[in-house]
Every structure is written in structure tokens, then in C-alpha cells.
């Protein structure tokens, strides 16, 4: 047992080891993508930035310790975004679900639902980036506070504050609209 441990360890320690790199990719790529999307929207192609960040990680695989890989990726991708991003208003798309061919909903209901979505869209764009990322990671991606805290390297309390604050602000803005 002890022998196996010592034999395996050097392999585990290096991101240049492609099995470990692949594991890091599978673990972080989606979260990184969602983080970028909810923060910046889709104008700047978050998927490309995810790939670029991982390529950078691979190029620097000998310099980045595996336990620092996550924050390296998030920082790199975030910077890549910021380089291209000129603080435009972030408008998230909605309703990518398939259209129902026949519906028993009244036209009025359909219209109201559309208006409601537009209100949410406007309200979401008014949240701070930090609020929006934490809130949508929680509400849409179903992540718990603790997971988000680990992802963003902040405290659980901080996450709770952001998410609850976002919910409050969102409801106020929707009522106003």
C-alpha cells in the first residue's frame, strides 16, 4: 500500500500529466463556462475563453500546482473576458426551451408570461456581476451556497449575502417595472 502511494504521488503532482489535466478539465470547465456566462453574458463567447484558459494552464502546467489550478483558470478566463469587455450591459437570453406546438394557454397568458420574462431579463442586467453570478449559479445551476463559495473563493456567508441580496433586488425591480 505504502509503496503504491509513493509511486503514484509524483504523477498526481503535475498538471502536465495528461490524465490529471483531463480530470481538471472535466471538473472545472462547465463551472468556469457558467461563471463567465452569468457574469458577462454570451457576447464574448465564454466557451472560447474556457478553452483559452485551459490551453494557458497546459502551457504553464509545470508552474501551476494542482490545488491552484482552479483559481488560475478562473483568474485567467476572467482576465481574458475583461480584456475584451467594455462594460456593456449584460443581457441574458431566455426561453431556449422548445415551443409547444399546441397549447391550451390563452393568448393573454402567453403575453403575460413573455412580459414577465422581459422584466426578469431587465432586472437581472441591473444586478451587480457578483450578485448575478452567485444567484444564477444557485437558482439555475442548482448549486448550494458551499459549492459556490468554493468556486468563487469567498465565504459561505458572503455567498448567502450575495444571493439573498440579489433575490431582494430582483423582486423590487420586477415590481417596479
Amino acid at each position, binding site marked *: 500500500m505504502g509503496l503504491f502511494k509513493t509511486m503514484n504521488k509524483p504523477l498526481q503532482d503535475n498538471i502536465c500529466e495528461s490524465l490529471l489535466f483531463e480530470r481538471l478539465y*472535466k471538473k472545472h470547465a462547465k463551472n468556469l*463556462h457558467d461563471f463567465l456566462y452569468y457574469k458577462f453574458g454570451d457576447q464574448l463567447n465564454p466557451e472560447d475563453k474556457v478553452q483559452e484558459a485551459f490551453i494557458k494552464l497546459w502551457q504553464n502546467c509545470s508552474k501551476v500546482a494542482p490545488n491552484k489550478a482552479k483559481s488560475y483558470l478562473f483568474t485567467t478566463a476572467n482576465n481574458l473576458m475583461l480584456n475584451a469587455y467594455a462594460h456593456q450591459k449584460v443581457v441574458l437570453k*431566455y*426561453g431556449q426551451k422548445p415551443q409547444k406546438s399546441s397549447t391550451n394557454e390563452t393568448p393573454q397568458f402567453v403575453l403575460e408570461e413573455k412580459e414577465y420574462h422581459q422584466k426578469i431579463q431587465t432586472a437581472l442586467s441591473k444586478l451587480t456581476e457578483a450578485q448575478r453570478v452567485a444567484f444564477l449559479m*444557485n*437558482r*439555475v445551476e442548482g448549486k448550494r451556497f458551499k459549492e459556490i463559495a468554493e468556486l468563487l473563493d469567498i465565504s459561505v456567508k458572503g455567498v448567502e449575502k450575495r444571493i*439573498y441580496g440579489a433575490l431582494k433586488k430582483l423582486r423590487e425591480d420586477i415590481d417596479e417595472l
Partner: protein
Amino acid sequence: MKREELIKKWLDHNLNTQEQNAFEQLEDYNELIKLDAALKDFKAPEFSSDQTYKTLKPEKTNSKQWLKPLLRIAAILAIGFSIYYYTTTLDTTVVTDIAQQTSIELPDHSTVDLNANSTVSFNESHWGETREVKLQGEAFFKVAKGQKFDVITADGIVSVLGTQFNVKQRDSYFEVTCYEGLVAVTHNNKTTKLKPGHTFVIIDGKLLANEKENAVQPQWLHGESSFTSVPLKHVIAEFESQYNQTIITENIDLSRLFTGSFTHNNLDLALKSVTIPLNLSYSKSEKSILLKRE
């Protein structure tokens, strides 16, 4: 439990059954659920790590770590080889200044005496294939026996087989004198063969009659420039090559022919040698000499 606590626990997916019931009793429960459902429509586009990892892969394998140092070594080698190749195939060039003469030996032990203000270049690495020397100015060649030997000038090519000869090519002046052996001069695609003691002269595009030369070596090798019926302007040009002086002329016909010589070691004597036979006078200033009619 307070309303805010319940909502926070709901947000964190952390309600137990009892709390769930209490949460459902909240007056804004329906509104929260409606909002929550609508928010799901803002989901980020599908991102499949399995799919995107595959598109990453080719780029990833390209930048293999061991390749980098290898590429560096390859680059250094490539640069090294090209510098080596460039320098070894580069022409060797020898240049003389005004009032300076030099003697060089070619790879086959042929010798070249280079007169003042002249340039000779040859390629050492290709010497075995072609014995070629490019010349601007004046030089005296003693060629070792062997294959063809060419002196390439702007005005023509001089080809020889083991011989001694002098080539002078300056502005619109081209002169070849053979001292030993046989020399072929190609000018404007016409080849003239020179026997020892013969000179081939082209001044301002005109071929002058071959002159008989009795000397064993050109005069300039012995510190004198000599001329036979050469227009004054070419004499002055040669003078400027031997002495670091600018010569200015006033009302003088530069096409007058001069026969004679001037020394390289004594400015006044040289000036007299040129001016007296032509009835000219000279006056010297800092860096220039003025020639005029007497």
C-alpha cells in the same frame, strides 16, 4: 423561524420537512416559486466538457513540453549553420584608400597588387571551380599557372592563362596591359588577344590603338603613374587617387592628351610633372589644388 431565514434555507436547498411546510405558508410563496421557475429559462447554453475537451485536445498535444527545448536547439543550429554558410560563401573584399597600395595573395598563390582607391573581391570557397576576381580601379596580376582566370570589371572581362598583366578600370577608362603570357580582353562581346608588351585602352567608349609597352611591370608599382596620350581628366582622376587632394580646373580643356608620368611621393614634383608639359600653373590651398592656364 423568521421569514428571511426560511427563504435563505430555501435558496440553499436546505429546508427540512417542517421548514418546507412553514415556507409554503409564506404569503409570497407563490410569487417566489413563479420567479424561480421563470429563472430556469435563463440557463446558460449547454456546455459539455466531454465534447469541448475533444476540441481542445489537438491544440494541447501540439504544445508538448519536450518540443520546446528541442525547437530552441534546432533554431540555434539553423542560425549557426546559416551564419557559417553565409560567411564562408561571402566574397573576400580588399579595398585601398587614396594614396594607399596593397598586395594580396589569392588562394592559388596568384598575387594581386592593388593600386590606390581600388577594390578587389573574390570568393575563396568557390575558388576551386572558378577563378574570378572582381575589380574596380587598378591592379597588377601575377597569375599562377592553371585553369581559366577571369578579372571582371564594369567595362569588360580579362581572361588569362598564367601571366602577368595590369588592369585599370575607372570612370569611362579601361586599360589592360599584358606583361607576360597571353591575355584575352572581352569588351562589348568582342574579344581581343594581347601579347606581352601590348596594351588595350578604351577611353570614353573609344578603342585606342594598342600601344607597345617595354616595361616589365607597370610604373605604378614603382611609385609612379605614367600615361601615354591619355585625356587630362583621367590623369587628374588618377592624381586624386594617389594624393588626397581635390583638383579644380579653370578654363582648361580636359580632353587634351597627356603623355608623361607623375610620382606618388612628392606633391609639388608631381604637380609640376603634369602642369609644365601642358603649360598650366597650379596654386595649392588647404585641401584643393587649382589648375589654370599660365
